[in-house]
């Protein structure tokens, strides 16, 4: 039995599906960020696996993943700062109950 490219893509596909489901159904802003991390992570796996299986001598996919990890860290830090600030003002983090900017 051999490990093929497809066998690594299927868990990553399921991870992405879970991320989409959580992003749509969750109401808590932090839970939405966690779903977003799941999606970003599955894309990172895809980059690495395609690079390793199809172009083993090159490093493009690996560099993309490195930069994507840095971007994800920056984005999460800023988003969590905004969420904590919103909580300080509105005392809640549910997207349904925060409507000060809406009207």
């Amino acid at each position, binding site marked *: 039995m051999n490990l093929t490219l497809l066998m690594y893509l*299927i868990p990553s596909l399921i991870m992405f599906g879970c991320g989409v489901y959580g992003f749509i*159904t969750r109401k808590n802003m*932090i839970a939405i960020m966690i779903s977003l991390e799941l999606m970003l992570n599955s894309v990172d*796996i895809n980059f*690495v696996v395609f690079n390793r299986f199809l172009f083993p001598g090159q490093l493009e996919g690996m560099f993309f993943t490195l930069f994507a990890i840095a971007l994800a860290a920056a984005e999460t830090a800023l988003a969590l700062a905004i969420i904590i600030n919103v909580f300080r003002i509105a005392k809640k983090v549910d997207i349904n109950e925060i409507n000060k900017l809406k009207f």
Partner: protein
Amino acid sequence: MESVGNIILYFVIALAIIVFSVLTVTTRRILRSATYLLFVLFATAIIYFQMDYEFLGAVQIAVYAGGIVVLFVFSILLTHRPGERADALTNHRKWIGLSAALLGVAVCGYSLFSYANFCSKTLASSNGLDIAQLGHFLLSTDKYGYLLPFEAISVLLLACIIGGVVIARRR
């Protein structure tokens, strides 16, 4: 032909990724959700180690598991009472989410299986990754050099630091 240990490791990782990513989005306690996310990120790091990209696996553990999950746990503890449970989902919302996710997975899965011969490539042997070579690529301006994205990322991180300070400052 792969070694038996590699195949067993693969199945453990695949099972962990699938189970924990489903649990991450279905559990109603937010702190547990962050913990399951941590397990998913560790399993991803093990995939990187299995692909012989040790540096990337180390970065994944250091930045994701060490940085981002800690940030998540801190902000959860700052904004929630311990043991608080989210409200049960309304049926309407649940069906929208399920149909969007399943539709996406079905389309991608169909396209994956229709390229079966391309997807049945096996792992070619690699002579390992030289960290010095990686550093040269990162700071070179040649054809496969990444100096411009590297500098752009550093400017982005500076902007992120300033933005974080401005947002979190007490007025």
